[in-house]
């Protein structure tokens, strides 16, 4: 058992022209842990996730994976990062080659990162399809012939193939129907229990974050305004923005006046 964080982020800043999308974000993720990132639209969640996955370079700040910095866009640096950390998007459709079968797409990262023969990969793909609950027939299909939920399973299978230590999920269940969302969440729960993979789970849905994470950070305007155990944040929010977020969740007897009061407490000018 290691007690070193598998992912350590510090003082992350990202500017797009005049816009500071991420402003001094830092957190640590232990092996097998699950961290939520919540916050309103434009608060910098996706930008943070993309930096972790190496899709954007930070303006400043560091990302350590397994204790080593993963900066640089050299082929070697990118491969090392991808080997340790994989990302899942809201709709993975765009990340699949439309002309290639799902099974071939799932095999692709293994071909890039791992030694082994085509036969080894075929065996591993079969195992992965089974693990995420997809049939062999679904594996032989093209991406467009799968439902949204099936595509999300396929994306998870592809990400798991090279046994990364961290999975970054950006609104990965947001577009799914409740019944399908529950299937994917249950799948993710099981995978973490069985493989010890760690999650960074980006979502605007606090109920989902409560289900899938142990700790969470709340972002607003690029900054982390609150952090802690997810349950603690939900039960005793400390920052006025977190309070607004919680009071905004519909519930029988919903007090909409309180939401308005929270808003005024947060932005006295409005």
């Amino acid at each position, binding site marked *: 058992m290691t007690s070193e964080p598998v992912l350590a982020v510090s003082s992350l800043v990202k500017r797009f022209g005049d816009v500071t999308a991420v402003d001094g974000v830092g957190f640590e993720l232990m092996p097998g842990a699950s961290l939520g990132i919540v916050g309103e639209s434009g608060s910098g969640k996706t930008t943070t996730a993309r930096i972790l996955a190496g899709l954007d370079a930070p303006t400043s700040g560091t990302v350590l994976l397994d204790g080593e910095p993963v900066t640089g866009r050299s082929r070697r640096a990118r491969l090392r990062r991808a080997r340790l950390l994989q990302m899942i998007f809201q709709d993975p459709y765009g990340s699949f080659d439309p002309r290639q079968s799902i099974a071939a797409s799932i095999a692709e990262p293994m071909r890039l990162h791992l030694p082994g023969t085509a036969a080894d990969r075929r065996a591993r793909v079969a195992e992965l399809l089974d693990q995420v609950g997809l049939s062999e027939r679904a594996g032989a299909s093209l991406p467009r012939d799968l439902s949204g939920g099936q595509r999300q399973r396929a994306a998870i299978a592809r990400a798991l193939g090279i046994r990364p230590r961290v999975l970054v999920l950006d609104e990965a269940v947001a577009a799914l129907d409740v019944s399908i969302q529950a299937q994917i*969440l249950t799948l993710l729960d099981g995978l973490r229990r069985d493989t010890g993979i760690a999650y960074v789970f980006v979502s605007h849905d606090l109920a989902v974050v409560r289900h899938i994470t142990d700790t969470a950070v709340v972002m607003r305007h690029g900054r982390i305004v609150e952090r802690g155990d997810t349950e603690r944040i939900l039960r005793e929010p400390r920052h006025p923005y977190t309070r607004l977020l919680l009071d905004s969740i519909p519930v029988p007897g919903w007090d909409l006046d309180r939401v308005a009061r929270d808003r005024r407490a947060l932005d006295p000018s409005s």
Partner: protein
Amino acid sequence: MTVQDKKTAADTATRADALGIAGLGLAIGSGEDAVPLLDGVTVRVGRGETVGLVGESGSGKSLTARSALGMFPRGARATGSVTVGGVDVLAAGRAALRDLRRTRASMIFQDPRAAINPVRRVGDYLTEGLRARGVPSREAAATALDLLEQVGIRDPRGALRRHPHEFSGGMLQRVVIAGALSTGPELLLADEPTTALDVTTQAEVIGLLKGMQRTRGTGMLFVTHDLDLAAAICDRVYVMYAGRIVEEAAGTALFSAPAHPYTKALLEASPSVHGDRTEIRAIRGRPRSLAEAPSGCAFRDRCPLADDDCAVAVPAVRAHGTSAVACVRPEEVTR
């Protein structure tokens, strides 16, 4: 449904309701190749009432809501009856429908940007409905200003001259709400009006909608896939599955006493921020459209209580507790 029944349903709706949909069926094409979309949909919205229509994607929520404005898919055939404030929608001609949309019923969609012409000023958008009814333009402008103020737009006078792209999604949805209410409709059809918004913005927009609706006595059909939201703001809720209504319940009863196995399954599949942390339970399979659904009860390939008798016929609607439910054994559904 016989012609006689249909007439009676329409007459009753005339007097009391903002919206009366009775036994609505919808199919594209005819004969062997017909693709069924809706079957026997019955929905009532009383004046001033907020009624929810919930279900997963493809269940027929939007088709049902749009039927109130006589908006049907190309080539679709409708049966049953649809009445809005006394107007028989299925029998109405073009002019009558245009008049209906202009005066009696308004619709708000998920994406406010799709509802507003991007090159026109907000002021023109807000006054066109009024001017079309013969309201002088000076008076229409004053009304628009007043509405923008009511929906909480800062600097309403300046807003009249601005274009849609100058507003955030939440602010633009407020403008659309102002537009929808400008003609003083009896019925507001809100199709996932807050789905694209942040939770905090959603709460504000809902507060606004409910407030405006309450003071004006407008009936609202609120379409959403979010059970929590429906239960929180609706007097009554209809649950749809595969083109049919499977349960009708009071908003509060939906959670405490779901009567249909599908409603219960949805609740068990949804994580919650309230109360103790509980396990979620996934529903096997995936939601289906009416055309793909099994015969008899459409939910039977996913239902834990399914048995042979569920395949015999589409379950009739029966009263159970305070709900109406289309299931052969609602007494076995307990939370």
